[in-house]
Each structure stands twice: as C-alpha cells, then as structure tokens.
C-alpha cells in the first residue's frame, strides 16, 4: 500500500507553502498532489513557486499530480482549468470540467471530489483514460470493496481518504468572507488566518465543522487507523493523507509504519494524539453509522 499526499485544502503564506513541499521531499510518501483545489483567488499567491516544488519532488522520486479546481464557475476558472495541461504533469480531476477541457487520450487520475459511487461510473472513467481514482470519503467500506474489485478488472488503482479533515461541501459562497461581513469578491483573504480551517462549534460548544473559504470540512480528522487491514484486504492501492499546517511529515511517518505492519492501530492513534492532543478523530463514513463516529476510545 502506498501513501499519497492530497492537494492542500488551505490558504497558506507562500513561504509556508514552499517549506511544506520542500519537507515532503524527504517524507515517506509515494505521490504528491498539488495545486489549487478550493479557491481560484488563492493560486496567484504561490503559482510561481509551483514549477520549483514539482521539480524538487520529482527529483526526490515522488510521483507528482496537479489538481483541478473543485468548483468551476467563472471564465477565469475555466481558463485556469484548461491551462493545467500546459504543465505536462498528470492532472487529478476534481470537477468534470477538467475532463471537458483537457486533451483527450491523455491519462488522468480522479480526485475525491468527483462522485464515483458505483462500478458503471468507474468503468466509464476508465474508458476515458482514468488510471487511478481516490474515492469520495462518504463511501462505506462495503462500497470500497465492490469498487476496488471492479477497478482491478479495469486496470485502475483505488485510493481511499486516509487521514485529515473531511471535505464535506463546496459552495459558491465564501463563509470566511461572510463571517467577516464581506462578500466573496471582496474577501480580503480572510481565510489566510486559519491554516487548518476555522472551527465551527454547535450551540453546546461541541466541535462539529470547520470553514475554509468556500469549503466546509469536518472538525474531526478522519483516520483509517483501524481499517488498514480491511483496506489492504480489499485491494486498495493507496491511502490519501491530507495536508495540515503542523506535524505533517511526522504524521506520514506514523502511517508508513502502520501500513508496513510495524505498529498497530492503537499505536498509530497514540502517535496522532501525542502530536495533537486536541485532535478529534473519526472513521464513521467507512464503518460507523454516521461520518463523525469513531472506532477508537480516545481522540
């Protein structure tokens, strides 16, 4: 089983962005997806650093993929999506708009924000040139198993959301801007103050969600700590770890040790909690009665 680093969902300062991808060169991961997933207004701030980051990651032996934007509405965003091909790097499609504008007959991968719920969708994507698919985090283990079997017959690799705040929704409205009494067009980049999203709590002060510009995430960090064996048995090729602003390389180490069989679920969870004591965990989409459920007792 391999480890993929998913596209960064947050808006970081350019120096933090560059340092993050610099550090990944020596992290025990196989594949890195980078580029802008959430908001087209963010890209200009780090766009000129992309070529260097890509080159360094490739030199370090990582497979590199560029993400497409999750929700494409504006002309500028359509252009940005069609320009992805010019980078000559494999594209991860996170909105079917990318399929519409990228050259045909070029292999691509499919990200977690495309609705791949069944075998026919998987087969259709394979027919269009998909080589790997990261399944939507909402899917239960039973669906993952069925889809992984189907993918084997189609020659596709299947990836599953392994760790990180869950991308639960995307909107035309920017919630960071709204919270600051601004509109999206005049957001003044309110999201840059929250490197891992801004906590949204219930009226009983229970952690529940996190806002990240136009995106809504879970408050909990999803973790596959307890499902590694089931996912390996199902034939899942890779786990996706979603970037966070602190301790990410250490997190990659923890998951690498777990998939190599050097540690068990309890040890992995202990490692995660030691690093981030306030971290709430979940794995309910895979095995629980709802997404926020957690198999473990702590976290």
């Amino acid at each position, binding site marked *: 089983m391999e480890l993929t680093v998913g596209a960064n969902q947050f808006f970081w300062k350019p120096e933090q962005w560059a340092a993050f991808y610099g550090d990944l060169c020596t992290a025990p991961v196989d594949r890195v997806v980078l580029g802008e997933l959430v908001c087209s207004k963010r890209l200009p701030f780090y766009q000129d650093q992309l070529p260097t980051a890509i080159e360094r990651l490739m030199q370090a032996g990582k497979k590199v993929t560029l993400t497409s934007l999750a929700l494409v*509405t504006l002309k500028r965003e359509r252009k940005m999506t069609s320009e992805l091909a010019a980078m000559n790097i494999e594209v991860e499609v996170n909105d079917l708009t990318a399929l519409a504008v990228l050259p045909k007959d070029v292999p691509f991968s499919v990200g977690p924000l495309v609705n791949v719920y069944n075998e026919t969708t998987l087969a259709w994507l394979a027919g269009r040139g998909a080589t790997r698919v990261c399944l939507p985090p909402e899917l239960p283990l039973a669906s993952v198993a069925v889809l992984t079997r189907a993918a084997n017959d189609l020659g596709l690799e299947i990836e599953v959301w392994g760790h990180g705040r869950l991308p639960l929704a995307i909107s035309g409205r920017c919630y960071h801007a709204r919270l600051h009494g601004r509109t999206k067009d005049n957001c003044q980049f309110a999201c840059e103050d929250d490197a891992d999203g801004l906590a949204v709590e219930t009226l009983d002060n229970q952690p529940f969600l996190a806002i990240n510009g136009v995106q809504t995430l879970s408050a909990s960090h999803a973790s596959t700590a307890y499902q590694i064996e089931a996912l390996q048995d199902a034939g899942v090729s890779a786990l996706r770890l979603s970037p966070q602003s602190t301790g990410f390389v250490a997190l990659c180490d923890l998951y690498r040790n777990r998939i190599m069989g050097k540690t068990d679920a309890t040890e992995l969870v202990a490692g995660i909690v030691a690093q981030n004591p306030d971290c709430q965990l979940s794995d309910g989409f895979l095995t629980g009665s709802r997404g926020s459920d957690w198999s473990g007792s702590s976290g």
Partner: protein
Amino acid sequence: MVMEIVCPAGTPAALRAAVKAGAHTVYCGFADETNARNFPGLNFSRAEMTEGIAFAHSHGSKVLVAINTFPRAGAETIWHSAVSDAHAAGADAVILADVGLLAYAAEDHSDLRRHLSVQAAAANADVINFYAEAFGVKRVVLPRVLSVQEIAAINADTDVETEVFVFGGLCVMAEGRCSLSSYATGLSPNMNGVCSPATHVEYTQEGGDLAARLGGYTIHRVADGEPAPYPTLCKGCFHAGKKTGHVFEDAVSLNAEQLLPQLRDAGVTALKIEGRQRSRSYVSQVVKNFRAAVDALEAGRTLPEGMLARLAEGQASTTGAYRKTWR
C-alpha cells in the same frame, strides 16, 4: 417563448393539482432511494407513475422523472430499473446526476430524453457541453451557485437548455457535492435521497429554552414559545470565531419571482419550483402565481409584486446566488 414552469409533485394528488393549476411540466420520483426526495409517504409507485403521466399528457403537461441519487456500488440494478420503468411509463424525460447512470440511459434508452440534475452541479458551459456530447443531455438544471450574469454567459456558450430554481428550499452548497448530512446522521442526499432527516431530529425543553438537534448536534436554541426552526444543517446556528449565528445561511428560502425578466433575458428555458414534500394546495398556489407571472411577462405586462411572500419558509426569502453579493 414562454418560460416553462416545472413544478414538484410528491404525490399523485399533487401532480393532478399542479397540472390543473397550469404547470407546463411536473417532476416526480419513485418511492425509493433513487430520487433526492426519498421521504416517508412521498413519491410514486410504478402504477401511480403510469397513471400520473397519462393524466398529465391528457391535459397537455409533461412529466419528468427524477432519478438523481448516485447508485450504490453492487446495487445499480435498482437505479437501472427506475430508468427502464420511467421510460415504460411514458416519461417525457429522466433527470439524472450520476455519470454511470447517464451512460446506462444513453446506451440502453437512447430515445428517452435526458436532463442533467442539479445534483451533478454542472456550473459552467464547458462541463455542460461535455455532458451533452458524452450522454446526449438536452437540458441542465443549474446549481444554485450562479449569478444571473453567469447564467447568461452559460446560455451564450451552449445549446443545452437551462432550467433554474426560482422558488422554495435553498441549497447553500453545490448540490450533489455535500455530505454534511451523512456526517451528522449517516444519511445523505447523494446516497439516500435525504438531507437532515426528520428521523434524526430532536427537540428538547431546557430551562426555558427549546433546543433543536440533528444527530445530537445542537444547531438551534430559541426561547420557549418562539417558533423553533427545523434543524437543517446549512441553516443552523453555530459558534465560529468570536461570533454566534447562521454561519452558512439564514433560515430563508429562495424566491426569484422579481428576477423573472432577467432570467428570461439570460436565455433560461425553464423555471423550477422546489418542494416535492409540499402539500397539493401549496403546489397549486405557487404554480398559479408563477404561471400568471410568466404569462404576464410574455404579454409585456408588469409582474404583480410580493405574490408569493407568505408562502416562503419562515416568512423570509432571498434571491440567493442570482445576485452576486450573496456570495
């Protein structure tokens, strides 16, 4: 051409009421998980669908069948049967969201007209044209994230007909791309055809307050005696930063009646009313009003103002993303 009024029907009685009230078109679904309003006591059996379509056709109205959830892995035949049965019942079109189901329908039911559901969240002309080319989609229901200007821009770049929501419940998130409900309750629009389901709602009296919870998460608290809003997740009240309030959206519903001239000028083909869970009298009243409005518009008369305000949820309404400042 007069803009087409596309009206919801959760029951055969609502379908007949909508047709009699002047709906050009009615949309409905089968009583199972294949459609996005899979609520108890709602929707159509196979026999009811056949009868409903015959009734509508005899009055000159069309019927669209929504099969717009995402088929479950290992159980796709349930969704395939729904498409076949809609075809056999004489549906004028099916409304689909899933790529695999679109591929199936295009292949096995090529002469059945296909509309792209709002659940596909196709938000620009490139992707809409792509669905047309790949699956022969003739109409797209646009996601509720677009301004009127953006809708006009889409229509300038596509031959696919566009249908837009004008009245009723308002999704704040891009439809089909939201799993807030399954995160809190295990049931989602995409997989189960429900959002913030009533089975997971709990109201509790707490020291003079009434708390409303969904899946155990407290998202409304009102003083005793005040009306307690239904705890729909994206309309809930939360703490964020140093503020407490409706982080995502207020308890409002969509009412774009005053934007009908702009929507017509933007090239919109059809106006969609949300609410398959609504009563037939509600449906009837909304249809009559919208039919009168589009007929007035076509005849060059001015639109009556505020005709639907009292039907809006919680007495508050919004024009949503149609005005850019909403974002």
